[in-house]
């Protein structure tokens, strides 16, 4: 009997030991690293304290819920082109992080390397149709699968001071006439980004071009902006900008403004009553102009012809490169709770500003919608995004050079467009 008891005890001990070893091994197997490549703005390094705290809290919650995950944060360069180039190179050489922030217009170029997320969308009850139309196009691959999670977005509009400009100009000619009128009252004329920078392309050039149904590239992504009808449409754009400068409606100095925020210093001076800019400038205007901003309003960007409409939309998305299911699930959960889920997108919009890319969020009870939020949403319904062509960056850079040469008086619109087309087309 004693012998039997000893045997049972020994066997039990062995079983417990084996079980413990098994659990330890299992726990070891389950723990894994998750490499999170993010921009400084979308990390705990965000320079704004409230945003940094929001991200830090959410990350802590995530780490509590996923003790097996060791989250490694890799900060991308603040130079978007440089960081996207590096990420693409990493993806090309199978060294991509598990999950990464990707500028919306770069996103389609990463699709070959990203994992489809349809099952996770279902699991987390996110409906792709809830996204704004342009976002659905960006996130959906040619195979109909969903490849990313979109964060907040942005758009471009005409800002005007109703105390000075009673009716916003709807056409470019009206904008020139209004600009000349308000200059007589001591205000600056119409200003917009017209220098070397992406702001010039997305705020000034492309909306005027897209509104004429111009196409920068064909279906295969090859440049078309300098041939056939598209040549005439792009020339119309450069001629319109030239006319604004030559008539004195727009100062030549806009050729040194490459981004929308470059206008801020001039706006802060208080003599600006009309400019083309981005929705995110609202917070700057409110902070700088204070109560004087009460009289400001927004309107669609003035176009070459009455009845035309076009604006640009931007924003960032998240793509998951990891092939392992547990990594995909953890990465999806992290991004969902930070920026994309109903709670995440609402809270992030409240602390960060910007415009939700999911339509349902605009109706969320907890959303502290910014000024003109509903108007921006209306414009976003028909917003355009930059083409995902691999030639896009060169087209954009060359057209930025072209328009700034026209504004500074270095070249005529025809010469500038011909040179831009020659550079882009010669590379084919």
């Amino acid at each position, binding site marked *: 009997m004693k012998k039997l008891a000893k045997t049972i005890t020994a066997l039990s001990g062995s079983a417990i030991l084996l079980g413990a070893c098994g659990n330890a091994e299992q726990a070891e197997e389950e723990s894994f690293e998750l490499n999170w490549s993010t921009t400084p703005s979308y990390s705990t390094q965000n320079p704004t304290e409230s945003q940094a705290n929001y991200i830090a809290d959410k990350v802590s919650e995530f780490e509590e819920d996923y003790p097996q995950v060791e989250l490694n944060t890799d900060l991308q360069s603040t130079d978007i082109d440089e960081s996207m180039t590096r990420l693409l190179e990493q993806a090309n050489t199978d060294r991509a992080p598990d999950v990464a922030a990707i500028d919306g217009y770069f996103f389609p170029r990463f699709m070959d390397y990203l994992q489809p997320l349809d099952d996770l969308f279902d699991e987390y009850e996110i409906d792709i149709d809830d996204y704004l139309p342009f976002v659905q196009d960006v996130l959906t691959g040619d195979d109909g699968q969903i490849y990313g999670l979109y964060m907040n977005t942005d758009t471009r509009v005409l800002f005007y001071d109703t105390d000075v400009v009673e009716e916003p100009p709807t056409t470019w000619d009206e904008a020139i006439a209004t600009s000349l009128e308000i200059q007589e009252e001591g205000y600056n004329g119409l200003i917009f980004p017209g*220098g070397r920078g992406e702001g010039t392309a997305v705020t000034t050039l492309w909306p005027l071009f897209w509104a004429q149904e111009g196409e920068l590239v064909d279906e295969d992504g090859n440049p078309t902006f300098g041939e056939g009808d598209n040549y005439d449409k792009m020339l119309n754009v450069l001629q319109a900008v030239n006319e604004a400068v030559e008539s004195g409606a727009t100062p030549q*100095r806009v*050729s040194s403004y490459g981004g929308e925020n470059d206008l801020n210093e*001039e706006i802060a001076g208080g003599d600006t009553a009309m400019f083309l800019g981005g929705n995110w400038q609202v917070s700057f205007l409110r902070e700088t102009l204070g109560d004087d901003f009460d009289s400001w309003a927004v309107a669609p960007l003035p176009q070459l012809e009455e009845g035309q409409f076009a604006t640009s939309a931007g924003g960032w998305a998240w793509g998951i490169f990891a092939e392992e299911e547990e990594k995909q699930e953890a990465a999806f959960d992290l991004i969902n709770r930070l920026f994309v889920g109903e709670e995440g997108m609402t809270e992030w919009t409240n602390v960060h500003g910007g415009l939700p890319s999911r339509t349902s969020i605009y109706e969320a009870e907890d959303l502290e919608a910014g000024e003109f939020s509903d108007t921006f949403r209306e414009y976003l319904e028909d917003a355009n995004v930059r083409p995902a062509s691999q030639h896009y*960056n*060169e087209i954009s850079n060359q057209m930025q*050079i072209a328009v700034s040469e026209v504004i*500074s008086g*270095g070249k005529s619109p025809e010469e500038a467009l011909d040179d831009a087309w020659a550079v882009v087309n*010669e590379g084919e």
Partner: protein
Amino acid sequence: MNTSNKRSALSLTLTKGIGNSPIPWLIPLSLILLFVFLFPVFEIIRYSFTDASFLETDYSYTISSFVRLFTLPGFYQMLIVTLIFVTASVFFQMFFGFLIALLIDKGQKLNLKGTVMVRTAVLTAWAIPGVVIGIIWRIMYTETPSGILNYLISFVGVDIVPFLSDPYMALFAVTLANIWRGTAFSMILLYAGIQTLPKDVMEAAKIDGASAIQRLLKVMLPMLAPIILINLIIISIDTFNTFDMVMALTGGGPGQSTEVIALSIYNSIFREFNLGHGAATAVVLLTINVGMTIVYLRVLGKRGAA
């Protein structure tokens, strides 16, 4: 001599041979140079003969990048812009650097207070990163009445100066900012050179009745020639390679009026993802820099031999 002694002698000779040889000391340096200098240079030259892009993994070997570079609009303008930028920067950096070095030296001889402060203040400009200098000057050049320089200019009744939006003014503005940035380096080098000049020669010239101008031109400058030459070459190469300050100040615009070669390389590779074209432009810059170095070695070598 038995076998054991022979072996010991051989071993001693080998140890002495290796010990006296510079090879073991040069191996680590050579390896470092190979991996951090020669390999990247080789890669840049290799990529310049391809149509490589950051957006595609495949590429083929071709000379089309060079053909494209030399035939497209903008290349010769870029060379001219770079030449003006470098020539004006180098000349005025040396001129002002020499002037400040002379003033500090004179100040020290006269036991004036504040010479160290002046030296430190000038050096600060050299220590500030190029991007920050670009931003500082961008604020200075703002083309509204609230811009610092335009505000000052308004006191003499001059209208707003388009520092950054006029192609010619923009090149002037960028060059001026670069002169401000680089003067300190010339000052340090020339100041060090002035300190090494033999006092007896300068005094002898003075006793012989040479005027201040004559002493400067006939005595001081010839003795400083090697330092001036080194300074000339270093700041020339440095200016050719400048792109950070220009990028922050004008981004190369308006148009391409301030797009120097180094900035063009950055734009081609990181903005347009065109690695082949960017590498071909980099080879042009490398050729210019190597040419400058050969000139430096030959001219300085001859002077050394003389």
